[in-house]
């Protein structure tokens, strides 16, 4: 060993330097846990009120540490996108990365500042976090949602639309649809939680078809859609999209544009390919059974499509000159172009369904004839009559039903276009007729004078938000919170409508029972009053005998869950059963078709067994 260089030897007193540390504050901390930092990632917290059980945390978890636990005591509401389950966390897996917090669509998950858990009991490392924290001691919140940390894209891709000035006087389609690139971007926002699937009356496989769009495989997407819905063109445009109401992304941001994505899928696949995809699983052999369906609306045609694919011989009877029902005669062309309905129906016809138009039940063909020709009959005649308010003066010829006027517009039947009109009602039908009329008025007079009178307040409107916004752009006036009092008639001429202020719509039991302030009266001058407060069915074609044979419940035909009536050969579907809306009609159509098929094949099997 070499000698130490003199330079480093130092003074003998040098160790005394240590004395200077004697009075320093010690670095040693007391032996108890310090409070953790404000953004500390400790044990999980979960706000059960906010959590909807979407399981996105489970999907993002690196370590498969999250399990969803079904808790029957919790509320379940598929329509609102709430499932009775909550995440449980395995602290034998968790790495405290907090990606689950950053992705949580509702913002219910966060991390606490609690970090100590010591135990021999392995079971104690599997916990169901709530707001109390791991040990029921409310530690303050640590890492939580932050706008930078948020991993979700809360803004949807914008839908290109025709500007108001270009669309206000014609019936060309407003929404232009996503191009494939935009559709893929929009599809990428989906977190595949499946809330949409649960909320959809037809339980469409939305997560699957959205995923296929994200992968750029539009044909696969169409195949997924056709598993449950033969009207993608229609539903891609005018569906009430309950899926989007339930969408988890919509809890804090804008829901995934599921409806537009469906449209993008079919828009980007050529018609012949769509037909090939839709009929891929068509039965090779005929069953020899015949089914007659009354009414070529969405329910009837869905059932027809299903049954035809199963090998039955299906004939659909339709009163109007073209098939489609309310989709064609109730929805204006600017929302749903007729060629789009035709495209969907072409697929159904390609499955072998025969559609006989201009054939009215009770006039051109009777129920007895149908029964004679077919092994089973499905009624899907829908709600074809507008309801009346029955206020004084509502029997005046210038008081019209919205459904009736909409059908006339589609049929091209002339009627006197009023220079000014009021529409009673706050739903989508009210806006359909108001906006159609506005277009006709602009063409005829160059100006618009249509007023929609809704019972509901602005924030509780039944109509879609975009209807309200777009109608205002087109010049339609909206007055909220007014109930109709009477139609004002001078001589034979209709002068307008008097309304009163609506105080409340529902009674304590939640039944429809509006209360009015009779002193607050308002007069709306108009040449025409249009009632758009709902529709009802006209089943006079059934004939007396059948009407008597059938069991009824509150004015509707009594049916079982699958749509079978008390008469063994008769089923019902569509708005007659549930709704009114297209997707519910499709759902009931599927159910009826499945029930009919089971009944018919059961018969065959029974006969073969003999």
């Amino acid at each position, binding site marked *: 060993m070499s000698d130490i260089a003199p330079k480093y030897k130092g003074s003998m007193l040098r160790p005394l330097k240590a004395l200077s540390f004697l009075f320093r504050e010690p670095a040693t901390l007391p032996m108890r846990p310090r409070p953790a930092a404000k953004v500390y990632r400790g044990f999980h917290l979960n706000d059960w009120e906010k959590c909807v059980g979407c399981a996105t945390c489970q999907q993002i978890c690196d370590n498969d540490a999250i*399990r*969803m*636990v*079904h808790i*029957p*005591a919790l509320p379940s509401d598929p329509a609102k996108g709430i499932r009775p*389950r909550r995440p449980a966390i*395995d602290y034998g897996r968790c790495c405290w990365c907090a990606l689950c917090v950053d992705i949580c669509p509702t913002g219910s998950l966060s991390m606490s500042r609690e970090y100590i858990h010591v135990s021999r009991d392995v079971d104690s490392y*599997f916990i169901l976090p709530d707001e109390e924290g791991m040990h029921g001691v409310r530690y303050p919140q640590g890492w939580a949602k932050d706008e930078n940390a948020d991993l979700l894209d809360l803004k949807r891709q914008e839908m290109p639309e025709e500007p108001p000035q270009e669309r206000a006087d014609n019936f060309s389609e407003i929404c232009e649809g996503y191009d494939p690139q935009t559709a893929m971007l929009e599809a990428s926002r989906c977190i595949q939680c499946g809330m949409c699937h649960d909320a959809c009356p037809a339980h469409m496989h939305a997560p699957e078809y959205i995923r296929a769009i994200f992968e750029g495989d539009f044909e696969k997407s169409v195949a997924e859609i056709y598993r449950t819905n033969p009207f993608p063109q229609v539903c891609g445009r005018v569906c009430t999209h309950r899926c989007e109401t339930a969408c988890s992304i919509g809890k804090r941001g804008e829901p995934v544009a599921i409806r537009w994505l469906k449209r993008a899928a079919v828009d980007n696949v050529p018609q012949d390919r769509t037909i090939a995809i839709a009929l891929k699983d068509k039965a090779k052999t005929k069953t020899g059974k015949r089914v007659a369906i009354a009414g070529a609306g969405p329910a009837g045609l869905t059932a027809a499509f299903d049954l035809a694919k199963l090998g039955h011989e299906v004939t659909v009877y339709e009163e109007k000159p073209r098939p489609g029902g309310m989709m064609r005669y109730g929805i204006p062309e600017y929302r749903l172009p007729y060629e789009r309905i035709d495209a969907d129906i072409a697929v159904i016809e390609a499955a072998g369904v025969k559609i006989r138009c201009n054939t009215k039940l009770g006039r051109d063909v009777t129920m007895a004839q149908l029964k004679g020709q077919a092994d089973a009959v499905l009624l899907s005649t829908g709600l074809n009559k507008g309801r009346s308010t029955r206020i004084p003066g509502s029997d005046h010829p210038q008081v019209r039903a919205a459904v009736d006027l909409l059908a006339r517009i589609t049929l091209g039947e002339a009627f006197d276009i009023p220079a000014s009109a009021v529409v009673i009602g706050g739903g989508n039908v009210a806006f359909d007729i108001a906006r159609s009329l506005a277009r006709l008025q602009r063409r005829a007079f160059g100006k618009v004078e249509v007023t929609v009178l809704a019972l509901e307040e602005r924030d509780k409107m039944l109509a879609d938000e975009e209807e309200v916004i777009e109608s205002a752009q087109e010049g339609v006036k909206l007055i909220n919170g007014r109930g109709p009092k009477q139609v004002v008639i001078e001589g034979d001429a209709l002068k307008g409508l008097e309304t009163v202020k609506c105080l409340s719509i529902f009674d304590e039991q939640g039944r429809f029972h509006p209360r009015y302030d009779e002193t607050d009266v308002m007069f709306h001058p108009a040449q025409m009053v249009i009632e758009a407060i709902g529709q009802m069915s006209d089943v006079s074609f059934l004939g007396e005998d059948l009407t008597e044979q059938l069991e009824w419940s509150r004015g509707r035909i009594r049916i079982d869950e699958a749509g079978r009536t008390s008469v063994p050969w008769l089923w019902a579907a569509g708005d007659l059963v549930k709704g009114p809306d297209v997707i519910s009609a499709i759902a009931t159509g599927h159910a009826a078709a499945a029930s009919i098929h089971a009944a018919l094949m059961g018969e065959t099997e029974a006969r073969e067994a003999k």
Partner: protein
Amino acid sequence: MSIPARLNEVLNELPAIQARPAGARRVRVDVAPQGLPALLELLKGRLGFIHLSAISCVDWIEDGQFELVYHVWSHEMKLLVSCHVRIAREPGVYVSVHDIHEPAGFFERDIHEMFGVHFDGAPSMEKFILTSWEGPPPMRKDFNTRKHVEETFEWVDYRPDWLKDIERKGGGIES
């Protein structure tokens, strides 16, 4: 982004070489297997690419190939050249460049261990990390680690009281 003229000059001397810029101070060179040692030698001798930063191996199982990527850095040119070579997955044999770049010994040994590629002339092809491992080279794409784990290990079946309580009420863990 472009390839510096000096580098281009050198690359042009060798046959069957494709080069393109791949970002700031990055050049990608694709070279046939037999041309790589000469390329590395030339880069080292002429342009100062003396630092072998890493050798990466990629298993392109569908093409039946292993891709070997030699990342060399020149302190002079301040440039990273990644030389890509594709060799047949079977039998998976290549030559060692240990004589050109000494660090190659470590990476080749690692690749041999993880992918099963044999390097002729390497100083050591012994196991280093996986001495307790008897299975196939784990980094190969046909080795499924998740499946292996499921077959080899068991997970805790947690039965905490709160879970038993929920199960009594008809709930439980969803699959």
